[in-house]
């Protein structure tokens, strides 16, 4: 070791120590950058979740008004025939109006009355009364107590999203309406309850009546088709490529193809679906069948790649053992290798299907953006899907819609988390290592 004239090692000279300090500071800065990047990413995730959950959790409860409705025979059924079809067409709107006007007898002016009526969800209340009378015509002439959703503006007011102190013309709800709503809340006639509508209803023009049931059923159908098509085909293709494919140009071509398909933007799959399934084969627009097929083609590469790595992870000695006992190659693969790779295949399939569940763009291309107010009853019926429903609702500027969009996102994310957790659980439980 060389020494400077003073007897101190050059590594301990002032200049060297200064240099070392600079280098160590640089090192610390670099490390902080890394930590900063991680924190930034985690913060973004946190911000996303907080903003969505914070906007959306209030959609899981809703305010309902309980009101006595007198089913006046002269209005609903002037002929007295109790014909269900005639009852269906009756003027229930008027019945509901009368019921509310009766609750506030002091309100007499026409304009005030119409403001008063706006407290309840008009179509929600009329539909509910109509359905009850249709189911049981003997109710006509009696007084019925129904619980109906309040209008979305009242709901937002009671959830505290409408500023009561704002000038009257700058909020969606008038001073008089606030007084009435407060009176009804005080007497307990307006109560906040768990929002079952959101889970049982389909899309609607009124936010207080809109629900995700139709979209969820549409998504389930599309996923069912996607699963039924992509898992057998994907596993088959993977087994072929991994076990039976000869080493030739065609096999290489197929492999390159699969890798490239995995990177094709999802919207291009939508264009494929539009051009081939809809225009060439003439399948119905907006149908879960077509949506499922497009999603199946999209998930195919994911499943093939996952299955191949699961097959590769099975110890070759298993196959050798089977072959040495006289099994044919096919038998060794199907009786031993594939069953042992099944947990990996299953995990890959679940992850692939979870991706497909969140996919929106290809479904837009094949027309699954229609306004569908019925729960789809078959694979070829027009349907929506959960992510598409989110997209459609996100277009509306009103706060009640933002709330419901976020709630639908919460549902979607919960399902995705469950699916991925299931995949992780299965992998850790079932996977064997050799």
């Amino acid at each position, binding site marked *: 070791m060389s020494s400077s004239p003073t007897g101190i090692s050059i590594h301990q000279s002032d200049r060297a120590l200064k240099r070392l300090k600079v280098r160590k500071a640089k090192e610390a800065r670099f490390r902080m950058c890394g930590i900063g990047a991680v924190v930034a*990413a985690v913060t973004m995730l946190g911000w996303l979740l907080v903003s969505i959950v914070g906007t959306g959790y209030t959609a899981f409860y809703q305010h309902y008004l309980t009101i006595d409705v007198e089913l006046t025979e002269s209005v609903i059924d002037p002929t007295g025939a109790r014909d269900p079809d005639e009852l269906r067409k009756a003027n229930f709107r008027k019945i509901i109006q009368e019921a509310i006007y009766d609750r506030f007898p002091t309100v007499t002016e026409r304009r005030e009355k119409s403001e008063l009526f706006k407290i309840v969800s008009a179509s929600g209340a009329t539909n509910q009364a109509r359905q009850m009378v249709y189911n049981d015509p003997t109710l006509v002439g009696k007084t019925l107590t129904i619980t109906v959703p309040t209008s979305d503006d009242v709901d937002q007011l009671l959830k505290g999203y409408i500023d009561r102190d704002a000038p009257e013309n700058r909020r969606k709800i008038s001073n008089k309406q606030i007084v009435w709503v407060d009176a009804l809340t005080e007497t307990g006639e307006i109560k906040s309850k768990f929002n079952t509508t959101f889970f049982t209803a389909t899309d609607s023009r009124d936010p207080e009546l809109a629900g995700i049931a139709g979209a969820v059923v549409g998504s389930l159908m599309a996923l069912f088709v996607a699963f039924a098509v992509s898992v057998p085909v994907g596993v*088959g293709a993977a087994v072929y490529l991994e076990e039976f494919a000869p080493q030739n140009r065609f096999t290489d071509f197929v492999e390159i193809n699969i890798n490239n398909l995995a990177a094709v933007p999802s919207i291009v799959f939508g*264009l494929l679906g539009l051009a081939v399934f809809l225009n060439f084969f003439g399948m119905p627009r907006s149908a879960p069948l077509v949506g499922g097929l497009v999603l199946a083609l999209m998930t195919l590469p994911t499943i093939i790649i996952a299955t191949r790595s699961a097959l590769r992870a099975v110890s070759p000695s298993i196959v050798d053992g089977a072959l040495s006992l006289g099994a044919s190659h096919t038998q060794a693969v199907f009786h031993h290798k594939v069953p042992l790779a099944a947990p990996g295949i299953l995990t890959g399939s679940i992850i692939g299907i979870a991706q497909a569940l969140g996919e929106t763009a290809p479904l837009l291309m094949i027309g699954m953006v229609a306004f569908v107010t019925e729960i789809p009853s078959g694979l070829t019926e027009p349907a929506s899907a959960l992510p598409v429903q989110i997209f459609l609702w996100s277009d509306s500027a009103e706060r009640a819609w*933002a709330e419901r969009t976020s709630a639908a996102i919460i549902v979607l994310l919960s399902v995705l988390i469950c699916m991925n957790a299931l995949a992780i659980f299965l992998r850790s439980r079932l996977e064997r290592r050799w």
Partner: protein
Amino acid sequence: MTLISAALLAAVIMAAFIFGRGLAFSRGGAFSASGVSGRAHSLPAYHGYFAAWAVGVATILAAFIGWMLRDTIGFEVVAILVIVTAGAGFVVCHQLINPDFRARNFVETFVKMALFLCSGVAVLTTFGIVLSLVFESLRFFEQVPLLDFLTGLQWSPQTALREDQAGQSGAFGAVPIFTGTFMIMGVAMFVAAPIGLLIAVYLSEYASKCTRALVKPIIEILAGVPTVVYGFFALLTVGPAIRGFAESFGFSVPTQSAIAAGSVMGVMIIPFISSLSDDVINAVPQTLRDGSYALGATRSETMTKVIFPAALPGIIGALLLAISRAIGETMIVVMAAGRAANLTGNPFEAVTTVTVQIVSLLTGDQEFDSAKTLAAFALGLVLFVITLALNVVALLIVRKYRERYE
């Protein structure tokens, strides 16, 4: 109707399986209870599978041909045809199945053929994409010259729908769309590339095993969030936040802007870049690190002067893949970037992208022959070609790089 025929078909195939297997048992004679025989070539189940396959294929073929000809020959004839074919299948099996019949070889060949067809689906999908895009694009370029499309500065496809304006077929100059796409991609990469790379560096070189096990899955969650959720986040939270931030400095920024959509898209591709570069950094041999540490370099010096240059090709590959992902991303930009085709270099304005235009051209009412609808396929073709090229180049770089150290 479809359900009933499918159930009938399944029943026939099941029956054929039981028939074939039973026949093998009764004719094999020497089959023991476990099905093992000293004499027969194949296990009874293979005879069953063979019968199921033979009858099934014959019946499906007959039903398909009958369905095509149903108008000329009538439903009754079709039904009779199918029943006769199925019966014939049973008769053939009855003739063929005996202990010497090599049922297993037939079944295994069939299984291999079926697996081959499965892998063919992937090829068919690619062909389907290429053919449908090229075919529709050619029809579009019959109406709008290719050069006008690629170099035109004006994009206003909506006018094409107005029938009364004969001769005026809208403007299909895609340059504003391309610039918008690249601007948003640029913003996204500006956010994602540094953060993603630093995360990869931190996780692979600095983090303890425990931190890594905790942080990596959290980052991966970002990749699992559906893009429609990011789009809503950009629209509901990030867009207004950026607008509010800019307003506090006296600028006016629309809620839908390139910067809002781009930065949220950047967050989406962070895990993409971080996990790919993580792999690449981990693939650099440990000997390089050890050599550098032995010479007294700090971790950051090792990282920037040794590992980073060694991993650079792989990292470039990862960035290219991320760019291709950003260009093809749809929902975030549809919801947060705006629809008007602005030719601008300012990221605080609303711009539009290729994917946004495809969506807005194809949702809603469409006539399939109008230039407006076909333009979506031309844009789709451009998108497909660009992403494909990026992927091929990226994979080539990554592969070449991997070979260097193996």
